[in-house]
């Protein structure tokens, strides 16, 4: 650590983060750092703390201890959800959460990267570029045909896709993607992997997934969490041959 300089030049830097719920330690001294334009896959047993970690990063959960920095300067533990989102952290939730009473198209529209203050929003009119962008995104998540349907009418998997579309629309610097492949067919899973790889060329992505085929497809560094801290880190092959990882996670 250089004195006076920034602690880190990573995009996201978690250091020794702990979170406890009624005495149960969901995160236990977790440290992690993600570089610019890096994609990282996170694996780990159910309950390892993966979702909780995302909660900490996005401001939903306040850590009891530890630091969380974004772009080395923003202390994520002090900002609220909206501020963090505005910094450029986007998230897809484990269970798809979309705006049920809005159409598919409006869901994307609301996510588009624009001024988020009430008055500019009140006076804003949709531009050509916005429209084109929406069209492109809908195409990408294969929901063009459903653009006028209410999101509540979508099937589970379609909602997953819609949420991915919303995430893309935000153009965040860091994408947190919790189990994107859940409920998708193998083909779609592969497609999602392509999509993420594409994105990761310019942005940073953190993907949580239990589907090893998918993780392998991504072909990136893997971090395995267990009981709230890092159990193993490295290439998928290295991690998945780790005895402990096999024991607690992969099974024999």
């Amino acid at each position, binding site marked *: 650590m250089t004195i006076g300089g920034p602690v880190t030049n990573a995009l996201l830097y978690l250091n020794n983060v702990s979170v406890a719920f009624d005495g149960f330690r969901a995160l236990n001294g977790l440290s992690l750092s993600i570089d610019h334009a890096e994609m990282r896959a996170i694996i780990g047993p159910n309950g390892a703390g993966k979702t909780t970690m995302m909660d900490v990063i996005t401001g939903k959960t306040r850590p009891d201890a530890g630091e969380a920095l974004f772009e080395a300067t923003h202390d994520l533990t002090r900002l609220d959800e909206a501020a963090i989102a505005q910094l450029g952290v986007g998230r897809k939730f484990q269970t798809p959460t979309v705006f049920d009473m809005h159409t598919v198209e409006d869901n994307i529209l609301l996510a588009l990267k624009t001024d988020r203050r009430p008055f500019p929003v009140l006076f804003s009119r949709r531009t050509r570029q916005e429209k084109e962008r929406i069209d492109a995104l809908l195409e990408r998540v*294969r929901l063009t045909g459903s653009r006028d349907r209410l999101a509540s009418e979508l099937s*589970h998997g379609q909602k*997953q896709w819609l949420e991915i579309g919303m995430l893309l629309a935000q153009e965040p610097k860091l994408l947190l993607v919790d189990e994107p492949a859940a409920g998708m067919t193998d083909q779609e899973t592969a*497609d999602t992997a392509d999509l993420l790889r594409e994105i990761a060329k310019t942005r940073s992505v953190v993907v949580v997934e*239990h589907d090893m085929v998918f993780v392998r497809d991504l072909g990136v560094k893997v971090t395995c969490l267990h009981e709230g801290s890092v159990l193993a880190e490295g290439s998928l092959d290295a991690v998945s041959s780790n005895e402990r990882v096999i024991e607690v996670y992969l*099974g024999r």
Partner: protein
Amino acid sequence: MLNVEDVSLYYGSARALKGVSVTAAPGEVTCVLGRNGVGKTSLLRAIVGHRPISGGSISLNGASLAGLRPYERAALGIGYVPQGREIFPLLTVRENLETGFAPLKRGERTIPDDIFELFPVLKSMMHRRGGDLSGGQQQQLAIGRALVTRPKLLVLDEPTEGIQPSIIKDIGRAIRYLRSKGTMAIVLVEQYFDFAQELADRFIVMERGEVIESGDAKALEGNDVRQRLAF
């Protein structure tokens, strides 16, 4: 055992199922395959009685289920693991499991030990509220909860979603074990093709609310079906 015949189902004016037929027999696993939004969940909803059907018939052991409320179907022995878990968020894990006692006789009201063998994490979290569990833990709870009712027909909607690989293997083993007892019929909706292929005795493939292919598990071997699941 379960006989679904020519069933249609609507959401408002949108048709989600068109003349779907499927059967399930004790000691067999029937797999339902299909891409997103083709109507798999809708089919299961029709079976467990969460949505009314507008055509066709569903019967269990020859008796029609028409007009029966979900709890009556549960009493007849249908256990359901829904997509999206739907655990009771404010009940503890134990209480969530105990909701399955409702259709049982007084003497049978115990939680079978095999559930904890299958999902050891539940045992250690007995007093945590269901809603506080992680996604995968909730999924395990949802499966466990359905088993508490000692179902004769087990209906599972993407049970492996969000579950870690080692436990998926365990679930596979469990399903195989339940099948091997020969008394339980299992209907399984699954996107995870390899998992389905390993377990299935029979399968149907759906598209746009219709069954486009059905048959014996052996037919799954080929690339045909896989092809159909792609877009």
